[in-house]
């Protein structure tokens, strides 16, 4: 599975085994140059293992990894010096903030004045210039993560390998950090591999996504496509496609599931062929009126759970169970409670169909 365009990193026939068990197996994956590739998947799916292999800190059982067409392991130190990494833990050394940021440059033999200039520039870019003289042990989690990212950028890497660097910081800090990171990465355009669990992060930062499940590459493509058009049931479950119904095509562009007819603009499957019909919970619009375009399903509210900015409601439309995420303000306007009748509106463009083998 490969992205179109110029591959900076290429992974071929990669197998990583631990204790005789295969934990990662990728036939082919290209990491496009100058773009952010988000590596997504559940825990234990092999994302961090893949990152470890790209960093040359773990040795694959077989397969090849190339950077600009050259084997990465031919000169491991030279290859690592073209890359930089940041992790969930900031992993700063016991020295000042400035010395931490200068360290990769020092290891590359960059002269002192140039090191200082670059460190100051990147500390400034990440908004932590005032912390330059502070000891790394005296930083908050958010500050330490900014230092870690400034250190990664300071060595001006061709390839940036990031393993959930935003997940260890609190929500408001994370928001600011994500904003700054997105701006910096769009200016500097290093080839970036970002491992993340977070859908928003993937959609916001990613140009290209690769989804791993059980050590296998299951889907690649633009992040929105992976989240909106999952390739199979496992992917659908992982990307939060809460509504996955078994059904079949009844006529052109129309599917039946649980006794309900659903129009879809998705690529068609054969007439009468079984299919999985998927709808994201935030794509279901609830109205009192029961009018409008698209698929209109009368449903009864069965359960309600507040989930931060949305209210997750479980609905029954005949035999079909639906899950809808409704923004809190809309929910309050509707004034719905359990047992109320409501209309669920689903645009045919939001009905995704996965062909199923019989």
């Amino acid at each position, binding site marked *: 599975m490969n992205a179109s365009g110029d591959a900076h990193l290429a992974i071929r026939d990669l197998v990583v085994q631990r204790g005789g068990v295969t934990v990662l197996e990728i036939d082919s994956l290209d990491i496009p140059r100058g773009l952010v590739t988000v590596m997504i998947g559940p825990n234990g799916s092999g994302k961090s293992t893949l990152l*470890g292999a790209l*960093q*040359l*800190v773990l040795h694959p059982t077989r397969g090849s990894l190339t950077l600009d067409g050259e084997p990465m392991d031919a000169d491991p*130190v030279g290859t*690592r*010096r073209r*890359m*930089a*990494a940041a*992790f969930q*833990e900031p*992993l700063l*050394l*016991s*020295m*000042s903030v*400035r*010395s931490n940021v200068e*360290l*990769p440059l020092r*290891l*590359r033999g960059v002269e002192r004045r140039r090191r200082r200039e670059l460190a100051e520039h990147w500390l400034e870019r990440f908004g932590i210039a005032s912390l330059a*003289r502070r*000891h790394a*042990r005296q930083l908050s989690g958010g500050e330490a993560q900014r230092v870690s990212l400034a*250190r990664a950028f300071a*060595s001006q890497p061709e390839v940036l*390998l990031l393993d959930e660097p935003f997940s260890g910081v609190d929500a408001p800090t994370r928001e600011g950090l994500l904003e700054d990171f997105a701006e910096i990465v769009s200016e500097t355009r290093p080839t970036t591999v970002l491992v993340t669990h977070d859908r928003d992060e993937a959609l916001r930062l990613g140009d290209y996504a690769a989804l791993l499940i059980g050590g296998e590459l299951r889907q690649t493509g633009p992040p929105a496509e992976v989240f909106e058009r999952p390739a199979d049931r496992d992917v659908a479950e992982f990307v939060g496609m809460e509504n996955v119904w078994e059904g079949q095509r009844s006529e052109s562009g129309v599917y039946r599931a649980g006794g309900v007819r659903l129009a879809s603009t998705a690529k068609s499957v054969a007439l009468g062929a079984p299919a999985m019909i998927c709808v994201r919970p935030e794509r279901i619009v609830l109205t009192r009126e029961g009018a409008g375009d698209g698929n209109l399903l009368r449903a009864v509210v069965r359960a309600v759970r507040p989930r931060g900015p949305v209210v997750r409601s479980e609905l029954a439309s005949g035999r079909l169970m639906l899950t809808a995420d409704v923004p809190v303000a809309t929910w309050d306007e509707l004034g719905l409670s359990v047992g109320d009748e409501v209309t669920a509106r689903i645009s045919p463009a939001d009905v995704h169909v996965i062909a199923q083998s019989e």
Partner: protein
Amino acid sequence: MDLIWDGIREAARLWWAGDAEIIEITLRTLAISSAATALALVIGIPVGAVLALRRFWGRGLLVAAVNTGMGMPPVVIGLLVALILWRTGPLGDLNLIYTPTAMVIAQLLLSLPLVVGFSLASIQSVNPRLIGQMWAMGANRWQVLWLLIRETRLGLLAAVMAGFGAAISEVGASMQVGGNLAGETRVLTTATVLETGRGNFEVAIALSLVLVVLAFLVNLVLTTVQQRRPVT
């Protein structure tokens, strides 16, 4: 009690008078023990790092040997070195027996397991992900070792103190391989034993006090370095 006070007075007098023999013995003691400690650090820290970071067949056996070595009686080391360096021993042709070099070798073998053991414990306590980050930053093998030494400097200074303490306080092995020859291999510990045997308790106390003060001063310097605010 008078004997002790006489000893302290004698020590003060000898130092005040700048007794040439005492100064010579003190300087020799420092030179031999410092050389042994320095060698133990040069060999022991990389060995400790390898034992801490690598997994290989026989590693457990080596770690057990290091731990045993940390409590090895000095006379056993002395005997071993004496047998090897003896005129008819495997390295007898080098004519090292009863020389300061032989004493450095014996003290090195005593401090080495301590330096390896302390280094191993310090480096093993470093977050493995931090070591991964060192590699990811582009460090080569020696740069990783340098960063590890820097990161574990508190523990490694404890290794220096333990190694130097073992070397300077040792008497049995120094006697066996050095012979306590006046002007050549006599150090503070062997001189103290000699003077005690002769019944010259004032001189023995004086020598012991010099030894204690010397050990204290060296450790004071190391402790000051260890406990000061982290350097940037």
